[in-house]
């Protein structure tokens, strides 16, 4: 239960950050993306071809890559339905993003208070959201190249480049996402697994959300 997660913190009274539904959704999304990433990297460079071999052989990887890609797309749409309203970029986020240097150098006391998701998280969300469309759209051309007439071969050439560029952009976001949630902000991964964070965590990283869900800022009051 969530108490296991909360034992890391002084305050044992946990706040729920992600519902069970959100967590399942996130991890299905993550699984599909990671599979496509690993197999995609194998097709991307001969130096990583062993990834496909490890995942059951390259023909198998090639067979499942587009299918899991569709799965990723569906999971992303699901996520969009659930999270879209949380992810709208607001004035608060713009203020966060203009002070992002302070956040990046851990001078957190100078960072303006944030909602449930900060501006950076929201940017990552939109990057993945639009990236998914680009990947699916270009990927369909890679999946069924024979149905593009040879006189339109330039479309295939363009799509193969687009697919790779879109993948690289999402990989950039993914590296930052994994780094931040696993290493930079302790408690994030626990939250996505068990669903809850400590009050102190919520107050530190997402104070506006903390105030909203606790009905005030009891800790902050003098």
């Amino acid at each position, binding site marked *: 239960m969530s108490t296991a997660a909360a034992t890391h*913190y*002084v*305050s044992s*009274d946990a706040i729920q950050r992600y519902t069970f539904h959100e967590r399942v959704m996130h991890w299905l999304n993550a699984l599909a993306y990671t599979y496509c990433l690993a197999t995609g990297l*194998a*097709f*991307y*460079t*001969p*130096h990583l*071809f062993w990834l*496909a071999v490890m995942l059951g052989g*390259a*023909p198998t*990887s*090639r*067979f499942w890559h587009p299918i899991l890609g569709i799965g990723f797309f569906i999971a992303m749409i699901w996520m969009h339905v659930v999270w879209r309203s949380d992810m709208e970029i607001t004035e608060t986020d713009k203020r966060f993003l203009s002070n992002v240097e302070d956040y*990046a*150098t*851990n001078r*957190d006391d100078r960072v303006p208070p944030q909602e449930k998701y900060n501006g950076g998280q929201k940017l990552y969300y939109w990057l993945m959201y639009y990236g998914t469309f680009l990947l699916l759209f270009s990927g369909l051309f*890679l999946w069924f*190249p*024979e149905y593009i007439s*040879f006189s339109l*071969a*330039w479309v*295939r*050439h*363009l799509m*193969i*480049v687009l697919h*790779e*560029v879109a993948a*690289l952009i999402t*990989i*950039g976001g993914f*590296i*930052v996402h994994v*780094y931040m949630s696993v*290493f*930079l*902000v*302790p*408690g994030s991964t626990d939250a996505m697994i068990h669903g809850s964070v*400590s*009050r*102190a*965590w919520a*107050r*530190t*990283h997402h104070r506006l959300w903390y105030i909203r869900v606790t009905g005030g800022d*009891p*800790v902050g009051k003098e």
Partner: protein
Amino acid sequence: MSNGTLEIKAISGHAGPVAGRDTSRDYDVCKLIDVTTCIGCKACEVACLEWNGYPFRETVFDNTYQTMPDLAWNYYNLIRFNEHVAEDGTFSWLMRKDGCMHCADPGCLLACPADGAIVQYANGIVDFNQDNCIGCQYCVTGCPFNIPKFNHETKKVHKCTLCSDRVGAGLEPACIKACPTGCLHFGSKDDMKDLADKRVKQLHEHTSHKSAGVYDPPGVGGTHVIYVLHDIDHPQYYGGLPKDPRVPLLVRIWKGPLKWLGNFAIAAGVIAAATHFVRYGPKKVEEPKKEEVV
């Protein structure tokens, strides 16, 4: 069958150097197709099926002399047919034996991500090895001649092998053997170029085909299958033979600069994250004083 004489000089999707890189045998092989003497008998189509052990396919009649609309995974060799009316109103039937050109600079091999699915031998033959093929069809996208064809059942791609199995054993390709008119020739590239030039000269001197010429497109580094055409200025009349085929620029960018840029960006991203962690460490949770907790 012996592939002993077929030293490999280029391998698709291969990390690291290839033993036979930049080598060339004393004689690069070449097939010469003189379309001016092709009568469209399709003996070569039959010989190809027989040698490769494929069953005969149903033909598709579309009011032309062509066996079917396009090459297929088990049909490497197709006589393309075109009823051509020239500007002066003269009428001709153009026949061209279509199939893999065995490019010196093969776009299929460049595009292929699977180690060893496509190899280029030192004698110039470009060969697909279905055991290593992963069925991604990147080769279809990389080929400027629209040659490789996908087998949906086995998820492997096939194309003309230039009878590498026969050539490796010192024989000529099956289609050459079957051709009754002497339209097909096989030998070293130099010899075939000579022969082609002689034939073109003959056409210039003794026929009305004043724009006859040899098709050996430099955009793909030359090919190991070359044509003599009556009209070298309009190869597209011959069932869509491209005028200036090249490995697509975007495919080159994709396999060249974009790859290096991407590799660099991914590596830089991971190193930057690790460096950031070492420099700034994890974010700390600001612990409220005990008595403040409500």
